[in-house]
């Protein structure tokens, strides 16, 4: 994984609350066996009509969405299914961070493991950001992961929280599996003292 430090990017707003992962990527696109091409199907059923043509009124089809890096989403974004295809599709489209007032637990975990930053802000900051994007579709925000700061043009710096371990992995581009594999001796010791009751073979 590429290390993440600081980046700037335009924002796109999808302010409705409770957007579930079935909307982010409908289930019929989960029959793939790799991660390729998922950006095309991001928000598929909101983005395209029944003939597969882009719906001009959907935000991701508007010129302002081209090259956008930050998705400004409503509360409880990414609830529902555990499909990791949701962060894969968001990243394939070009998003590097999602800002909301809260996230579904599994989506949040999956995002952190892929380098898509789930940033939680309070309602006041969220409203300010929405108002800003509504006024100026080309407004850019800056995300500074080492400093844990979100810089909004014309607004204050907002600090956000992230667990120390995820931050360390993301800023150094480290794979979390490497950390677990280094606990090999502890895992072996655990298995010695906790014999298996489970036999699937």
């Amino acid at each position, binding site marked *: 994984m590429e290390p993440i430090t600081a980046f700037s990017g335009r924002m796109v707003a999808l302010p409705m609350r409770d957007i579930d992962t079935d909307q982010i990527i409908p289930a019929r696109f989960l*029959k793939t066996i*790799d991660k390729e091409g998922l950006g095309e199907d991001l928000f598929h059923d909101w983005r395209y009509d029944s003939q597969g043509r882009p719906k001009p009124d959907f935000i991701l089809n508007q010129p302002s969405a081209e090259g956008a890096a930050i998705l400004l989403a409503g509360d409880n974004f990414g609830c529902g299914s*555990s499909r990791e295809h949701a962060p894969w599709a968001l990243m394939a489209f070009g998003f590097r961070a999602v800002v909301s007032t809260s996230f579904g637990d599994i989506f949040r975990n999956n995002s952190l493991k892929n380098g898509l930053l789930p940033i939680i802000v309070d309602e006041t900051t969220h409203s300010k950001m929405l108002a800003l994007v509504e006024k100026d579709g080309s407004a850019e925000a800056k995300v500074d992961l080492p400093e844990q700061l979100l810089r909004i043009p014309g607004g204050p710096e907002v600090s956000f929280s992230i667990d120390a*371990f995820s931050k360390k992995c993301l800023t150094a581009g480290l794979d979390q599996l490497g950390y677990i594999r280094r606990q090999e001796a502890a895992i072996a010791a*655990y298995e010695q003292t906790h014999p298996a009751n489970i036999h699937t073979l």
Partner: protein
Amino acid sequence: MTKARTLFEKIWGDHIVTHEPNCPAVLYIDLHLVHEVTSPQAFQGLRDRGAKVFRPGRTLATVDHSIPTTDRSLPIIDPIAARQVDQLRINCRDFGVPLYDLGSGHQGIVHVIGPELGLTQPGITLVCGDSHTSTHGAFGTLAFGIGTTEVEHVLATQCLLQHKPKTYEARFEGALPKGIVAKDLILALIAKIGIGGGTGHVLEYRGSAIGSLAMEARMTICNMSIEGGARAGMIAPDDTTIEYLAGRPRAPQGADWERAVARWRRLPTDEGAAYDRRVSVDVSQLEPMITYGTNPGMGVPITQAVPEPSSLPDANQSAALRKALAYMQLEPGRPLLGHPIDVVFIGSCTNSRLSDLRLAASLMKGRKVSPKVRVLVVPGSEEVKRQAEAENLREVFEAAGAEWREAGCSMCIAMNGDQLEPGQYCVSTSNRNFEGRQGKGGRTFLASPLTAAASAIHGAITDVRTML
């Protein structure tokens, strides 16, 4: 004296391999269930690293999501689904993972086969790349859904990195009124706490009403924990749990069984243990529940009308309800009872077990489903199908005019060709009414197997209590 602990805290504490400062805990996973949809990229990750599956004997795979529920002697028509199923076969062969394939006699929805084999046991940790893994919590198991990267972690190390969640007690007290079943209890709870209400928490369901439920009903409750935002939901093991597990093929046997039971008896939450949050539901006041919107929190007692968006206190919620009702083409203030439907789906990891099918069959016996309605009955596993057929439930369903199909996830997730047409209305025993969940443009009313069967017969949303 040791500190009073909850069921969750006991299992959590017993599975920590290491927990270094400023790091998540390394949690040992006793059982890992695998299916075709969320595993291919994880196995590919192992190949790319030259890694093996660390504990194949703690791993079990089956096919459930993208497989057809039609004649099993025919090939899978959808080439993309066929390739995904084949890839799981290749992965299981290459990595030595046991696979319950189509026709093995044990294939089925992951959350149906784990319990019926006796692999889902109290006190263990269990994960699967599927958010409804919470189902297994009915046994006093710490069970939750994970993403594909985490599937790879568990395949490679049998461990997961986890931050400790908070605890949430959901107490159900009182006697269940006639016509009220487990699905109504959980839909009522989700309507009360909202779909984000349990985020960051593990739910523990307690109280006299939970104690009175059979294991399959408890699985229905735990299954929908994720619809309340909680990754896991649990019920402490008791006599009902132990009776269910006794003699199951993969449950401990002989002296191992006695030792296991003694261990399981120590799992229930200690008296005086504290929860981070609490909620309670008076079961005696419940009516059959049904959803009207596009998330599982948008549910009401079946005799109520479609809510008015303007009646909600929060502008975001009003906007969400307006959008949901526009999708559902439902008018605020109109009754839900009598709303015409096109399809009824009885199945899914929520309600596809033998007792669910018995509930539906009890209403359909000697009756016909409405000629305007297509009714799909999809057993949760090959074993459930066999048992249902041995009880002549197939004859009951077919005589009523319903389709009796092969085991799988089917129209709950609509990946396999079993799907709604745009605009169709469906009363479904599944767990999600999200836009397009049962097929693009399809509209879902979530309800119990009793409500689904009653509605199938009348061709419209029906209060089952009028038929009992």
